[in-house]
């Protein structure tokens, strides 16, 4: 629907045209774009700087001054004191498990819908797509009471189930677009040769979808890593909290120590920033493809 990739294809052609604005106009455009970039980056640069300072330096020096001696001990302090390392590891494993489940289950559904013949496949697809319109908040109270009844509140399974369910529609939507473009000849030949459906799916189709799997996995990871309201509502023990809620609680206790707060926030956003550094094209693609989720 809205594609970043096709946009890039035409970039070259558009650039070959001749500008009407002249040099001054061109410079003005750059000033606008750089201004927006500064607005987008400035808060993060400021965050990095104050995460390496102590309170005295934060209060007395100009906001953008470089720390004289970068105080990496802020990072050591928050990593070892409190439960930041516990929250971090919880975020990692819950994100990975939920993402893997969503991508695998989503692939199975997409395969069954695009490749297999059965009544009701379009109805089932509709069920998945309609779920995309349902606001998370409207399910929160019953979900809490259901999980409470079956003893899953304050248990990571409640988070994993919720993440899988709410990211499933967008995952299937992105996968569908790719599955429709995949040629069917190889599978058909394999079936003729007596290949089982499982073999066709796991050995032939799934390996061909590597690139779109990566895209869906990345946006799943970003959503899961950043999720807040489910953790905040379902989880009460520190041993199961993830970084979003953990950071929130931790900062609540250290409201006056700017360096510690900065270091905590940096730790919580660093994995995403690193991922962005290495996989930005795929992330841009995933965000554009998943734009309907909003």
């Amino acid at each position, binding site marked *: 629907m809205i594609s970043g990739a096709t946009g890039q294809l035409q970039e070259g052609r558009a650039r070959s045209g001749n500008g009407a604005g002249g040099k001054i106009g061109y410079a003005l455009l750059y000033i606008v774009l750089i201004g927006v970039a500064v607005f987008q980056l400035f*808060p993060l640069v400021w965050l990095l700087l104050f995460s390496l300072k102590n309170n005295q330096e934060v209060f007395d020096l100009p906001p953008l001054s470089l720390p004289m001696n970068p105080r990496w001990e802020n990072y050591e302090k928050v990593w070892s004191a409190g439960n930041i390392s516990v929250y971090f590891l919880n975020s990692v494993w819950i994100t990975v498990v939920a993402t893997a489940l969503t991508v695998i289950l989503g692939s*199975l559904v997409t395969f069954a819908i695009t490749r297999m013949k059965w009544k009701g496949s379009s109805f089932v697809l509709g069920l998945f797509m309609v*779920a995309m319109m349902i606001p998370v908040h409207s399910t929160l109270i019953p979900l809490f009471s259901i999980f409470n009844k079956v003893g899953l509140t304050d248990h990571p399974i409640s988070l994993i189930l919720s993440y899988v369910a709410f990211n499933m529609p967008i995952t299937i939507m992105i996968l569908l677009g790719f599955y429709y473009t995949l040629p069917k000849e190889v599978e058909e030949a394999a079936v003729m040769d007596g290949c089982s459906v499982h073999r066709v799916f796991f050995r032939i189709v799934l390996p061909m979808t590597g690139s779109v799997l990566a895209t869906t996995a990345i946006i799943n990871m970003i959503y899961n890593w950043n999720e*807040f309201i489910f953790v905040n509502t379902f989880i009460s023990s520190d041993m199961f909290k993830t970084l979003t809620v953990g950071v929130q609680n931790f900062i609540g206790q250290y409201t006056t120590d700017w360096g510690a707060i900065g270091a905590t926030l940096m730790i919580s956003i660093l994995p995403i920033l690193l991922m962005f550094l290495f996989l930005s094209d795929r992330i841009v693609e995933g965000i554009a493809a998943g*734009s309907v989720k909003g």
Partner: protein
Amino acid sequence: MDKVMSNKKIIALYVLPALLVIMAVVYIPIMLTAYYGLNEWNGIGAMTFIGLDNYQALLSDGKFWDSAWHSLLLAVFSAASLMIYLAVAMVLASKIKGANLFRKIYLIPMLLSSVAIAQLWLRIYHPTNGIVNSFLESIGITNPPAWLAEPSLVLFALFIPILWQYAGFYILIYYAALKNIPASLVEAAKIDGATSFQIAFRIKLPLIMEVIKVTIVLAVVGSLKYFDLIFVMTDGGPNGASEVMASYMYHTAFRAYDFGYGSAIGFFLLVICLIVTWVIRKLTASKETIQYS
């Protein structure tokens, strides 16, 4: 071939796990929300069926309408800010070197958690040490306001980080749409003597109108259910001045333990979002009518 590919057992095996999860986590809770809304319930004890009383109470609940008004204001701000994003995307799509780098930089805040963004902007707005007030004091403005503690300012103050968070997302969508316009159309207009402004407003805007409609509804629906950032930054305060529908629902259920009434609010939120989403579908239904060549 067909026989193998319509094996019911295998289809069930492939579809049911995901289907059961969204049934249990999305559809059954949604039905329960509607049902809980008809009851008086503290979340733990027995439920008492009270019919439509909660919905009736909702209609005359001043606090609820305040929160709905705040959500609507955010929706209007968000929809209005789309014009800025569109303008930036137009600049970005106009033969700019490094456009790809720019749009990636713009996107970074969108990838961060609302909690981290909220905590960062709490520091930015810090009354004495935040960069906003430090800057204002350095240019001679004494006693700058405590942005988030001022009922008349708090919604505007909250909107800046929202703008910051989503700018890259909408610019990315508009940029992609603008780049999809065939260069030949723009070239033809130039040959006919059209100015840059005419090209922008008469050719490019109409061609991406469908995308613009979609983003308007995305921004509106997104704003109606906005929660995380406000929850962390102000928790609806000061004195309810930044309470929005989702936070009001949360406070009613999980702070005041009025799960029945909270569910009624949740159901109302669902209905509003579905109505707006229905509008999305109406607007995007005519998508195919646009012909590029």
